[in-house]
C-alpha cells in the first residue's frame, strides 16, 4: 500500500509542486491544508503516514501545528519545509517534535530520498 501523505503549505503553488513530487515517488497524497489550524484538524482526521509542513503560515505557524500534531499522535512523522534563512526555525520545529526537514527549492529526488529514509524505506 502506498504511504499516505498530508501536504501543508499556504501556497497552492507549493502544494501542487510537493504533491507532484510525492505522486512521482509512488506516494498517495490524501489531504492538503493551507494553514496550521487546518493541518492539525486534517491530521487528526486522516492520520497520514507522513506530513510535510510549511513553517510560515497564517493563523498558526507550522511549528505550533507540529507541536499540536505530536501531542495528538506522538508517532506522527512531520517533515518541515524549510527555506534559506530558516535554519533556526527548523531547529525550533525539531524541538517541537518534527522528524526531519527538506529545504526549498525542492528537488524531487532529494525530497523523496529524505522521506524514504525517514520512513525507513531504504
Amino acid at each position, binding site marked *: 500500500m502506498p504511504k499516505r501523505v498530508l501536504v501543508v503549505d499556504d501556497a497552492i503553488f507549493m502544494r501542487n509542486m510537493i504533491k507532484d513530487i510525492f505522486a512521482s515517488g509512488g506516494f498517495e497524497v490524501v489531504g492538503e491544508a493551507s494553514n496550521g489550524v487546518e493541518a492539525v484538524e486534517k491530521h487528526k482526521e486522516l492520520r497520514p503516514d507522513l506530513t510535510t509542513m510549511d513553517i510560515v503560515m497564517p493563523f498558526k505557524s507550522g511549528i505550533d501545528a507540529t507541536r499540536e500534531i505530536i501531542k495528538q499522535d506522538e508517532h506522527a512523522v512531520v517533515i518541515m519545509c524549510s527555506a*534559506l534563512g530558516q535554519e533556526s526555525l527548523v531547529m525550533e520545529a525539531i524541538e517541537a517534535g518534527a522528524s526531519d526537514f527538506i529545504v526549498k527549492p525542492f528537488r524531487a529526488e532529494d525530497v523523496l530520498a529524505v522521506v524514504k529514509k525517514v520512513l525507513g524505506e531504504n
Partner: protein
Amino acid sequence: MSAETSKYLGLFVSEATEHLEALTADLVQLEKEPTRQAVESTFRHAHSIKGMAASMGFAATAALAHRLEDLIQLVQRDGSQLTRELGDLLLSAADALLADVRCAEKGEPIATHHELEAKLSAQLSLLSSASGRPHTKPSTPPSRLSRVGPARRFAIRVQISPSCQQPGARAFVALKHFSKLGDILELKPAMQELRSGHIPDGVLSFELESPADEPAIRAALTSLPEVELSSVVAQKKSVWGQQQPAPLSQPAANSSDNSRTVRIKTELLDYFLETVGELSLATARIREIGKTLPPPVQPTLEEGVGRLHGLVKDLHDKVMSARMTPLSTVTDRLPRAVRDLARRRDRNVELVVSGAEVELDRTILDNLSEPILHILRNCVDHGIESPDERRAANKSEMGRVAISVRRERDRVSLEIEDDGRGMDGAKLAQSAVAKGLLSAEAAERLSEREALMLCCLPGVSTAANVSEISGRGVGMDAVKRALEELGGTLELHSQAGVGTRFTLQLPLTVSMVNLMLVAVGREIVGLPVAKVLSALELPASDILKTGEAGFLPHSKGLLPVHPLSQLLGFPSGDAPATRPYLVMEGDQGRVALAVDRLLGQEEAVLKTLTRPLDLVPGLVGVTILGTGRPVFILDVPRLLAT
C-alpha cells in the same frame, strides 16, 4: 525555468501576484501603524514569494525577496515604526518583485537587482547595528528522555554531508535521535554555534551517556539523510541525572477562516454565465412554441417547461453567487495608491475603507477600479488642501478620504468622501459657460447639484490657473460614463471648505437587465427600466410646439421631446393622436422620448455586442425575446449625443 517547472508558471504568476498585492497593502498599513499582525503578515508574504520564486528557479527574485524578508524580520523584532524612507525602500522592493513576476509571465529574463539589494543590505546593517544585537534565541538543548539502568559513555563522531544546505538543522536532528538514547555531553561545536549553523568541516563530536548498547547507537542514524556516523567508541561508565522534558503543548488558537474553496478560472465563470443565459433563452423559446401546440398537449408541456424554468433560474442564481467577489479585491490596493498620490502632492492623507466585504459581480468589479482611482486622484489632487492651508482653515493636517460601501437591496452604494476644500458649483457653471457648453441663462437655472455634475462634462473645471487645467473635471466624464455602462450612477455633493462626496450607485450584477420594451414603427427596442424615470400617455395637443421642436410639460418644467424613430433613423408613420412618452435622464438633463407603443417590461439576459455592431453608437447590447426576436437595447444619453 526548466520544462519541469514551466507547468507551474501560471499558478506561480497568479499566486505570487496576490502575495505581492497583499504585501504592498501590509506595508502601507505598517507605515501607518505597526501592528504585530501586519508585521507578521508582511513577513509571511515576503517569505512565500521567496520560496515560490526559488522553486521556479528565479534566483534574482528569490534573492530580493530574501533581503526584503530579512529587513521585515528586523522591523518585527524592533517593533519600531517604519520610517518613510524605509517604507519607500520596502515598497520599491515589492514593486520590483511584481515586475519580476510580470517578466516571468511574459517569458522574459529576470535581471538581478544589485542596486536594490545593496540598498536593502545597507538598511539591514544600519538597523541591526542600531538595535545592537544579532538576534539569538534563548538556548535550550533538545529534550531528553529519562532513562533508568546502568549507563555507559560513548564518544561519537558524526559527519554531515557537505551538500547539506542546513547543516545546523541537520546536526540538530541527529542530536535529537541520540538524545532519545541518553544524555549528550561535551558537544562540539557548542550548542550556540550549532544554532547559528556553524559546523567546521561538518564534523559533530560529543559523548553520549546511555544504557543502550553499541549496535543500538549505531542504528540511531539509519533513518536520517545527509549524515553518517563516523565513529562510536565506548568509554568508561558514569552516572547521570534525570531531566524532565520541556512541556510541548501550547494553547490552541482558533481560526474562523476555514471554509473550503477552490480556484476557478474567470473565463470559466464567464462561460457558465453565458451558458446559463442561453439556457433561459432556450426555455423561453420552448414556452413560446408550446403556445402554438394543440390545447390537449399544452398543459403537459407547460408543466415541464415550468420545472425547467425553475431549475434554470436556480442555476442562474448559483452561477451569479459564484461570480460575486468582495469589493476588497479592488479596495485593498487603494491605500498604496493614495499614499503615492499624497506623497507626490505633499499632502498628508489617510484613507479609511469600510464595508469592503460587500460583494459584487466580478464584471462590475473589474470595471470599477479605474473610476474609483480616478475619483481618489481628484480627492487628493484637488480636494485635500496642503498641510499649511489645512492648518490655516483650522483643520487637522491629516486629510481624510473615506470610502464606505453599503448593500442597499439589489444595489450597492459606494461613497467616496474627502474632507478637503469642496467644489464650487458656481465656478463650474462659469467654466461650462466659458467653454460654450451651456448658455448663461441655463447656468443660472441650475440647482447646486446639477451645477456640480457639470464637472462630468468634458473640459469643465474649477481649476484656477492654467497649470492646473489638467485638474478636476478632466476625466470625470469618463468616470460617469464608465459607471453608466455598468448600469450605475454617479452623484456629487459638495460643501465649500468641508469636502466633497461622490456617491456611486451600482447594480450587484450586470448581466440581467430589466427592459422596457417599446414599439417604434414596426421595430421593437428595449430601454433599461432603471433609466426610465416615468412613462405617460398624452394627446398630441398637450405638446408645446416651437417650430420643429416639441416640449412636454412636466413637474420640473418643460422637457424637450425627441421622437425615438427620428433618433434611430426609422421610418416614422403618422404620429398617433395620443402616444406614450418616456421621461429619461440625458447628459444635458431630462428628456421625453416619444414612442409608438409600450409593450411591457421584461427581465432579459444582456448580451454584449461584438464587432461591428459594438461600433454603432447608442446601443448597449442585445437580447433575444422568447419569440426568438432579437431586440437592441438602447443607450439613450449616447443616442442623444450623436
